[in-house]
């Protein structure tokens, strides 16, 4: 019975957040437009030489993805905090883990997945060979959930703080450096024809670590912020 209720709660919160996200399209589309702008500006400013672009394009894609996801983390908890929904959620008798995971999954589906699709479409502009694009896809598939998980920690800690963008960036950037390093080196190796499994395993390990620890941190952050 409790399991049914927890599943019901998980799906209700997930569905609620997806519904709100789809209804509030500007929040959904703005980061994507930002991402496209960054990606298109590089070929225009560097020049269309294939060799130069190929060398830096994995880095461009990843930096743009990190910055674009940075734009969205404020939205994970802020509006729920401001209208009191979060208070009601924290006071729910069900485990906070369920709530936090549902919210993070919704955020990934709304912010991470569109980004991945966008990269696949932008790949040809950046002269990425198929194998490198495939690797880039895997790194994003493993990496964007981590961005959502770590972003949720920063979002939870800074909700209700005015002009929190700088603070969020400071909290997030050190934590996602390993992600950036492994992802970009995986794609670079792929372009040289080297094996990339090592990097992908590391990324998967980072994802598992974030999945295990981030919800605890997020829930504690929410409790701290709500007790003020």
């Amino acid at each position, binding site marked *: 019975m409790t399991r049914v209720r927890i599943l019901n709660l998980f799906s209700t919160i997930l569905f*609620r957040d997806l519904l709100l996200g789809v209804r509030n399209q500007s929040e959904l589309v703005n980061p994507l437009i930002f991402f496209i702008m960054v990606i298109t500006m590089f070929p225009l400013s560097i020049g269309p030489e294939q060799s130069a672009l190929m060398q830096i394009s994995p880095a461009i894609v990843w930096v743009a993805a990190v910055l674009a996801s940075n734009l969205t983390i404020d939205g994970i908890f802020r509006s729920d905090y401001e209208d009191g929904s979060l208070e009601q959620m924290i006071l729910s008798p069900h485990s906070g883990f369920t709530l936090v995971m549902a919210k993070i999954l919704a955020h990934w589906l709304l912010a991470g997945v569109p980004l991945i699709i966008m990269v696949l479409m932008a790949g040809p502009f950046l002269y990425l060979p198929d194998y490198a694009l495939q690797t880039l896809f895997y790194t994003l598939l493993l990496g964007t959930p981590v961005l959502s998980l770590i972003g949720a920690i920063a979002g939870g800690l800074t909700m209700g703080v005015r002009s929190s963008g700088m603070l969020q960036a400071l909290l997030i950037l050190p934590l996602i450096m390993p992600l950036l390093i492994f992802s970009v080196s995986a794609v670079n190796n792929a372009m040289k024809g080297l094996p990339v499994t090592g990097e992908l395993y590391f990324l998967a390990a980072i994802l598992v670590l974030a999945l295990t620890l981030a919800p605890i941190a997020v829930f504690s952050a929410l409790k701290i912020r709500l007790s003020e």
Partner: protein
Amino acid sequence: MSNIPEPSLTVNGLNCYRYDKAFFRGLSFTAGAGKLLQIEGENGSGKTTLLKVLCGLIETDEGEILWCGKSIYSVIDEYRGELHYLGHKNGIKAGLTCLENLKVLSALGNQITTNAYSAVLRRYGLGGYDNIYAYTLSAGQKRRLSLARLAVNQTRLWILDEPFTSLDEKGKNDMKRVFQDHLKANGIILLTSHDNIQWKDIDVTRIQL
């Protein structure tokens, strides 16, 4: 249901210091089944803080809070299943319709008493608003929607922070009837209000902060 003990909320010697200021010291009271307690105090005297402490959002510095004789922190999940808290903020999402809001709120709770959400909305004066977005509602209607939550999950303890804010006379009377039913069913209500509640058939215990 008969083996469930009667609800009681006991507060013993509760102290609260926040922002280098003592809000209340040595606060003690007991709320038994069928009791309505009104917490009174000036602006800034710590009414909202007290309610947040009582529902476990803020941990106490000193003193104990007992639910049916056990510290609320030791039975926090069961306690929260028995509790409705309504704060200053309504907890309503502007981007959802009334019906969707009510469904989300009911999924958060434990004992879902009814699935007839439309009937609940009608009872709380929001008949016909099922598929209307909450951002189009007036402040009083939002408060009603927020209070409608009381009807969809069955809990024995209601902690309400200024429940009558922006309600009209009819709304207040509707709430009085809801309160009466809850008290008759052995529920407990704790509320803060600046109105001097004078209802001839409801016994109000006042606590001065």
